[in-house]
């Protein structure tokens, strides 16, 4: 009986063990799986490259979203801040912007007119254009170039100052000025220095400095052997103005050559007289 009982118990416990084994086996496998997965995760987490691989797309996604949504997300805040700043420091803002904008606009307009003028020039060059001919006739009869008719009164070129300056020494032979603002001798010296500087700095050799431009001013240089002319012009330089100026410069140079024997060529007053006589015409 005992034996039977024992057997029974044994059978029961065997069953239990089997059962447990069965149950635990599944657990064990599960646990092993889990451990493996945790290990894998740990690995991924600790290896930057592997992590990046996973996270980057997410971040990128967010960044893209931020980029496209930035104006709506932060726009109002930034606008408010700037608005506030401008409102509460108006004078500073105006002070800072005014000269820049003024210069920009002036330069821009002068440039635009120059370009437009050139475009019109090109158009008028279409030789058999009927309109071109009509314009040309108009110009012939009124004595000015067709392009100039279109832009009459807009930033007309005006000779502000002319200097006749001895080469090298930079001494002033004579000058003509609409409104003498600075010392003419000093300007003559500085213009000579700029000219020398350009020749030497850019190793231009025989090449000469032809013009300097600043804002809506131009300084045109015309070189002769003993002296050069520097002509300061405000406004937009048109081709016809250039033509007229070149012609006058040559006439003037001729006059000087012819009179070279009679005129003491360092007499500034005589020089200045000639200059006025020759160049006042252009400004009319």
């Amino acid at each position, binding site marked *: 009986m005992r034996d039977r009982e024992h057997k029974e118990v044994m059978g029961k416990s065997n069953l239990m063990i089997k059962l447990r084994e069965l149950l635990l086996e599944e657990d064990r496998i599960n646990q092993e799986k889990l451990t493996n997965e945790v290990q894998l995760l740990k690995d991924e987490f600790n290896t930057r490259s592997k992590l990046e691989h996973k996270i980057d797309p997410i971040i990128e996604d967010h960044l893209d979203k931020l980029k496209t949504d930035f104006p709506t997300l932060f726009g109002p805040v930034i606008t408010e801040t700037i608005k506030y700043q401008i409102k509460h420091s108006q004078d500073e803002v105006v002070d800072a912007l005014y000269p820049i904008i003024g210069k920009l606009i002036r330069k821009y307009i002068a440039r635009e007119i120059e370009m437009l003028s050139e475009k019109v020039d090109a158009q008028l060059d279409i030789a058999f254009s009927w309109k071109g001919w009509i314009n040309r006739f108009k110009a012939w009869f009124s004595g000015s170039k067709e392009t100039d008719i279109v832009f009459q009164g807009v930033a007309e070129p005006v000779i502000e100052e002319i200097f006749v300056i001895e080469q090298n*020494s930079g*001494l002033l032979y004579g000058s003509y000025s609409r409104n003498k603002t600075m010392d003419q*001798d*000093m300007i003559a010296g500085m213009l000579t*220095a700029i000219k020398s500087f350009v020749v030497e700095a850019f190793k231009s050799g025989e090449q000469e400095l032809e013009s300097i431009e600043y804002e809506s001013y131009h300084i045109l240089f015309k070189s002769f052997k003993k002296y050069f002319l520097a002509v300061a012009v405000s406004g937009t330089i048109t081709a016809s103005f250039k033509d007229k100026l070149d012609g006058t410069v040559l006439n003037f140079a001729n006059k000087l050559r012819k009179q070279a024997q009679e005129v003491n060529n*360092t007499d*500034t*007053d005589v020089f200045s007289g000639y200059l006025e006589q020759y160049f006042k015409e252009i400004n009319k």
Partner: protein
Amino acid sequence: MILSKKVILLGHFGVGKTSLIQKFVHSKFSEKYITTIGVKVDKKVVRVNGRELSLIIWDIAGENARQKVPQAYKMGAHGAIFVFDVMRPSTYENIEDDIKHMQSILPPMPFVLVGNKKDLMSEQKLNVLKKALPKNDFFFSSAKTGELVEEMFGKLAKLMTQ
């Protein structure tokens, strides 16, 4: 009509060329050192033998390794002022060579030699320096006190009109 002459100031950087001109033309002196970039042209009318003479003064930057100055600035000059700094031997050690160099690139013209910043040196040391120099017709000036500033330009003006 006023006669004009071009005067150039030569010498190492920082010896006081600009200061001497400032003192001479505008009666001003500043302790601040603002090195001249390139060249600056100034002007002063002086009287020589009862006649007016316009000095067009070219303040040329002292050359150094970093700044080369166009030789053209010196062209056409009628007179030169060589300036050195009495406190800095390097500015006068080669003065004879410097003068020779100028004479090789420019036609003959009058010049004066100037040892500047005299106010920084004792009489005693100055006397030692005077003996060591190759010539004895130097002006020892100070742009700060104005000592001999008028005189050096006056002397050159006279030489240029002879």
